[in-house]
């Protein structure tokens, strides 16, 4: 220990000397040329002496700020305040430095070789680690989407708090989800055409190498792309931009994975112009916080750069991060009350091991070639080609395996889910109120077993196969295999010292193959590929080209189609910076083309499923502008506004792409069109040497959006079991609210933080609701469903209901203490309120009040109906999080650890949930809600209880 302290002391002394030298240098090194006042310099890493790019250099108390270039150099030429000033030099991952300087009019001040120390506490890494791994990417609605990855590189206290303290509660800034933020990697957009969201898992576990990020917040102009209204993050993986050295990290947690190992090495720019960076990681665990949520992920990253000459560099990046995760189920309150908040109904024991039936597997390698061309000191062109391919698979159990009897399928199994409503006590309480022994028996069974019984599934399959039949149960996956080319070219130029101009052209071409595939036939060897719900031997065919096909493990089945997407985008952006006012204008135009191609000819849609469907195209314009008025260096005002038309995502375009070419709106004759986003915000920013604060108000509308949900309905209008698509078309939403963030460096070691977000996110109209399904031949079903294959319910009365998706109110207060002896602790208390359930739109249609004869229910009670349809608001809650760490320097090596505890008080809290669509009318809902335990109660997600994360690393 003693030796350690000594080393540190020496280091500190050395640094002080250097600072002093620079200070003197600042006073005396006055350039010969008179005229312009210039402050310039460069920043280097204190350990490696390598230049550091993208360092923010600011003259304190002024608006003069810039970033260092690839050589770590910067310069200020205009609006430079004179006299004694303080230069703030900061970059994520480094300790912020303040350098006193004196600026004389008409002189050039050159401060080369400013040193930045690597921030060995690396607090930001802590969250990057835990949260990007936490991008549950669970496709279920309600709690899956997470924006923290978008915001984590921000310097702004509000955004950092949103990313690190709020995201485990699925807080969305301004109520907007991640499709409103653009994630780029080396200038190439990573948001998916399918849902507009970035797939974080594609580069998960590569924290060391994706840390290099440039964030533009909100509407602020990005120099790469027009961007979403939440902002743009560009992850830079140029090999030369990594800090030279290596690093080994080991982490342990009980959140998602149990163990993590990452090894990274960067060569820095070697003398012959080459640079390479390599990172390898593995994350694994049998179980996260929820039962049986296994984690099995590997990551490999390699980036090679060749600096051809001063003007040209070429970089090649490859990323391969296969990831398998066990999913966990949303449950009803009844289930949570019996089994606790870690309960997951997707798994069961097999062979003494927990086997999860729902695994999400992501394996989408990324290859990129980037060319950087500095045409002049003012102008650069960056040209990129990206190729991404691979697969996303989501597994689940099928229980509708049939046998062909005389040309027609018979069979099907029972629902293997242990929480199927007919197995739970509430079902028997409702149906056998006079014999509660049955409910008790069901409860005991659920408490004692209550998981998938794999042995029974095997036994059913083995016995049916022995009788010459096929599998009754099958484990299969829904697959999306994308192949995507991206090509773009980005121009950055400075017309003069006040005007910067960016423009870019993008082209992406996507082929997305979608199909279901058998993973495991659980003891049987064949499966009959038909739809067991259809009632005749044409409609039940998955593919009329190959009727009654027998499939085996590894075969595609059920549905098989391609989606094609071509997107061309052009954008331009001009930024004007003056003494009192900065402003920008930006515009883009996007042409989006979609087409579906059916590989299978679906029996229910024989004329509308095979081959290529009609081409859809959307043209969207976007425009935005903003202005910053600098009253003084301390008081700034900022206003931004944007109008954006955007194509609906693929997911919200095709209403039932698995079976047919239908597009949203086809059935009701309302053509699909672009969504329109309007947004405006205004901020007041206060900056002093101690306090930084920002207050923002915003108003955003999203108009003409579509949403499609898919579910098996057991009993729409009676006994009918059908796979249905619920289409909401023409949704308008309104997001308004305010944000406030403040941080105060009250002593050199203590920083206090406070953040508030108060919003109101609501539906602002009553969109059209249509249900679609396979047309039925059954006369009894036709009475209810008609013969057309769809039902138009007219308006769904959503107006003024709250949009689900995290708390609409959130506050945080906290502090950080950084001891000069390289240890630090922090704590925050976070308060969440106004979290709402995702309502069922079908229940808000005329279906709710209408009896089977088309007239209102004769016992309809408006007051009761109002109560039944009231949106559930979850209880507010407070989460306390702790974090701390310490690090040592031993010779040239750094060793450190940090740990965090989330939800220290083990507060049980709901983070989200959704209503089940089963009780779609007044009588059903009334009767169900009147029960002590509703049979079709809403399903919820609970947040985690107390969890820990520990990280140790070694750096050289």
């Amino acid at each position, binding site marked *: 220990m003693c030796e350690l302290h000594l080393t540190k002391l020496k280091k500190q002394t050395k640094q002080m000397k250097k600072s002093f030298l620079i200070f003197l240098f600042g006073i005396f090194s006055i350039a010969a040329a008179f005229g312009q006042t210039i402050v310039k310099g460069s920043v280097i890493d204190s350990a490696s002496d390598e230049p550091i790019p993208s360092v923010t250099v600011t003259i304190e108390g002024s608006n003069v700020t810039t970033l260092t270039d690839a050589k770590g150099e910067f310069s200020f030429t205009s609006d430079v305040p004179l006299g004694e000033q303080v230069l703030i030099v900061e970059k994520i991952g480094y300790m912020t430095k303040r350098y006193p300087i004196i600026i004389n009019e008409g002189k050039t001040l050159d401060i080369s070789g400013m040193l930045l120390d690597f921030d060995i506490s690396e607090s930001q890494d802590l969250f990057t680690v835990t949260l990007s791994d936490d991008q549950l990417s669970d496709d279920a609605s309600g709690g899956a989407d997470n924006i923290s990855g978008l915001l984590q590189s921000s310097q702004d206290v509000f955004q950092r708090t949103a990313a690190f303290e709020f995201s485990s509660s699925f807080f969305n800034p301004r109520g907007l989800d991640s499709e409103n933020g653009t994630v780029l990697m080396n200038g190439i957009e990573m948001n998916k055409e399918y849902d507009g969201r970035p797939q974080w898992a594609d580069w998960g576990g590569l924290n060391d190498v994706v840390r290099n990020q440039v964030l533009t917040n909100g509407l602020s102009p990005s120099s790469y792309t027009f961007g979403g209204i939440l902002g743009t993050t560009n992850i830079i993986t140029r090999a030369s931009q990594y800090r030279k050295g290596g690093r080994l990290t080991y982490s342990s947690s009980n959140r998602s994975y149990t163990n993590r190992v990452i090894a990274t090495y960067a060569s820095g720019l070697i003398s012959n112009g080459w640079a390479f960076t390599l990172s*390898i990681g593995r994350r694994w665990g049998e179980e996260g916080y929820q039962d049986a949520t*296994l984690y099995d992920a590997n990551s490999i990253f390699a980036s090679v750069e060749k600096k051809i000459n001063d003007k040209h560099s070429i970089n090649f990046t490859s990323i391969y991060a296969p990831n398998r995760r066990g999913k966990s189920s949303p449950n009803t309150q009844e289930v949570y009350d019996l089994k606790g908040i870690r309960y997951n109904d997707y798994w069961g024991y097999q062979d003494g091991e927990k086997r999860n039936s729902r695994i999400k597997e992501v394996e989408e390698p990324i290859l990129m070639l980037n060319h950087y061309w500095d045409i002049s000191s003012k102008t650069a062109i960056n040209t990129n080609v990206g190729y991404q391919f691979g697969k996303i698979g989501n597994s689940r159990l099928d229980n509708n395996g049939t046998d062909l009897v005389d040309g027609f399928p018979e069979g099907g199994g029972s*629902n293997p889910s242990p929480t199927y409503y007919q197995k739970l006590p509430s079902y028997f309480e409702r149906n056998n109120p006079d014999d509660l022994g049955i409910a008790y028996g069901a409860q005991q069974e659920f408490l004692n077993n209550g998981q998938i019984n*794999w042995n029974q599934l095997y036994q059913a399959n083995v016995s049916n196969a022995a009788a010459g039949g096929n599998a009754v149960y099958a484990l299969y996956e829904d697959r999306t295999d994308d192949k995507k080319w991206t090509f773009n070219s980005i121009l950055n130029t400075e017309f003069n010292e006040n005007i910067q101009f960016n423009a870019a052209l993008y082209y992406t071409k996507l082929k997305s193959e979608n199909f279901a595939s058998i993973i495991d036939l659980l*003891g049987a060897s064949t499966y009959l590929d038909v739809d067991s719900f259809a009632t005749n031997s044409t409609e039940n065919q998955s593919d009329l080209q190959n009727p009654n096909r027998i499939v085996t493990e590894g075969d595609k089945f059920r549905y098989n189609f391609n989606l094609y997407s071509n997107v061309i985008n052009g954008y331009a952006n001009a930024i004007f910076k003056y003494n009192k006012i900065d402003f920008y204008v930006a515009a883009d135009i996007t042409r989006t083309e979609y087409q579906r191609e059916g590989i299978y000819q679906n029996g229910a849609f024989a004329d509308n499923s095979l081959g290529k469907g009609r081409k859809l195209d959307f043209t969207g314009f976007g425009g935005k502008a903003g202005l910053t008025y600098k009253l003084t260096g301390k008081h700034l005002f900022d206003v931004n506004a944007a109008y954006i038309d955007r194509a609906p995502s693929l997911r919200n375009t095709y209403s039932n792409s698995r079976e047919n070419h239908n597009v949203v709106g086809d059935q009701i004759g309302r053509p699909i069109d672009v969504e329109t986003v309007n947004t405006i915000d205004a901020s007041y920013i206060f900056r002093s040497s101690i306090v930084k604060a920002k207050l923002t108000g915003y108003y955003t509308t999203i108009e003409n959006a579509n949403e499609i949900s898919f579910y098996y309905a057991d009993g729409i209008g009676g006994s009918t079991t059908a796979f249905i698509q619920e289409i909401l078309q023409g949704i308008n939403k309104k997001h308004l609210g305010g944000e406030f963030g403040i941080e105060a460096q009250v002593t050199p070691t203590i920083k206090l933080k406070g953040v508030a977000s108060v919003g109101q996110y609501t539906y602002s109209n009553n969109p059209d609701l249509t249900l679609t399904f396979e047309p039925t031949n059954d006369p*009894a079903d036709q009475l209810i469903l008609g013969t057309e294959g769809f039902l138009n319910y007219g308006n769904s009365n959503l107006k003024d209901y709250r949009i689900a998706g995290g708390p609409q109110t959130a506050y945080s207060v906290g502090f950080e203490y950084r001891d000069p002896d390289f240890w630090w602790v922090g704590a925050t208390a976070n308060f969440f309120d106004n979290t709402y359930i995702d309502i069922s739109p079908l229940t808000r249609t005329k279906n709710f009040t209408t009896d089977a004869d088309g007239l209102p229910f004769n016992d309809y009670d408006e007051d009761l109906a109002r109560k039944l349809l009231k949106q559930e608001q979850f209880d507010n809650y407070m989460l306390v999080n702790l974090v701390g760490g310490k690090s040592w320097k031993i010779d040239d090596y750094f060793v450190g650890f940090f740990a965090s505890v989330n939800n220290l008080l083990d507060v049980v809290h709901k983070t989200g949930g959704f209503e089940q669509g089963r009780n779609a009318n007044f009588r059903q809902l009334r009767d169900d809600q009147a029960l002590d335990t509703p049979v079709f109660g809403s399903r919820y997600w609970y947040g985690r209880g107390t969890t820990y994360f520990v990280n140790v690393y070694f750096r050289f």
Partner: protein
Amino acid sequence: MKANKILNLLVFLTMTFAITSCVQDDDFKTPDVSVIDPNINADNVINFSAVVARYNDAVADGDQVGTFEFDLDPLYIEGYVISSDQSGNFFEELIIQNKVDDSDPSEDPRLGFNISINARGLYETYEIGRKVYVKLNGLAVGMANGTFIIGKAAGNSIGQIQEFEYRNIVIRGAEVATITPKVSAIADLSAQYENTLIKIEDAQINRNELGLTYAGEADDEFDGFRTIESCADGGTLLLQTSTFADFKSLPLPQGRGSIQGIFTRDFGDDFNVLVINSREDVNFDTTERCDPIVLECEGPTGNALTVFNQNFESTTTIGQLEALGWTNINVSGGSVKYVIGSFSNNRYAQISGFGSGQANIEAWLVTPVINLDASTGESLTFDFEVAFANGVILQALITDNYTGDVTTTEWIELDVSIPNTPSSGFGGFNNVGNLNISCLDGDVRVAFKYSGSDPSATTRYHIDNFKVVGNN
């Protein structure tokens, strides 16, 4: 060099972790699912007759169910599964019988029970032929829809065995037997065969129902009923198919052959039915049917002349009709005869065996003599209405050689399709015609023969607007 060393170290470390940090995730072994026979001690097994006796004792004591106490020594019956819910035609029930064939020894007669279980997918565990031991302790035997049922003792009724417990009550043995059905004539079927596997040979679906599906018609509620008729003796039995069966919307087999299924009673315990496990139980493979010969006349018909007309409006009693030369007779010895019915100012001839208590009903309504000598190109029309159908038991017949006794007259059937619907309520009048009878001459009579059996075949019929037309 240094970089290479570091790289090697990294690769080595990663490999080490990759190897030592396996997550049990896929590649699960197929579990052993072979069935081990529970080896029930024979002393603890009673036969099916003993269960029936328990029921009879209970009834003699004034109870409705016979219960088996919980706390006694374990008590079992052993039987073989003969039903399957794979196709959905059976629902929440398991039919077991005590024999694998048609043997019927007097000390342990051939019997079957319906085990009531509140679960789906029973076939996954109990396939056809599977030997099972039913642990009777805590269960009860009673009657449901007129057949024996075993379920949970629930006071004076039978409750369902629940999903969470049935595997501990209906215990699988290792044996899976091949079940040979008992072959029987329809007429020989009686209550003792209920809940057992029965095969009817040389049968077909009644010709009037050939255009229908098993149970996919608009007026099939819960079950569809179709008429199986024997080619050998003309006997009929209803084929009952659930509207939840996978094959409910498929067309009925058109040919002739054998059919096997579980012999039981309909839900209302009104008549006997046969329920198949799957369409493999139907082997109507012979294309040549055994439909009755119907009158087939060729040639043109006309309507210039009304040869005979009776709309029943002027006959307020059947006696008045008989006075006009009509014959109304029951030849089976019962009281069921045609009467004059009326509804909404319309009169018609009406017959129904419902509530008669007569197991064998044969009633005839015969027209007066109709002379066709003065006309050519004659044809015949009438209206009929079906109500509360549970079998097609009306025939329209014609003769040109009436002996004065319906039973000795040689009749030819008229080609009339009479539906077996609706099962409840009234179907409204249908018009029949024009049936070409131009190849007949002289004195003819038309008869409506009603062949019923209360309560299983009691369909009600209304006949109206009987008319023969022709040319001069």
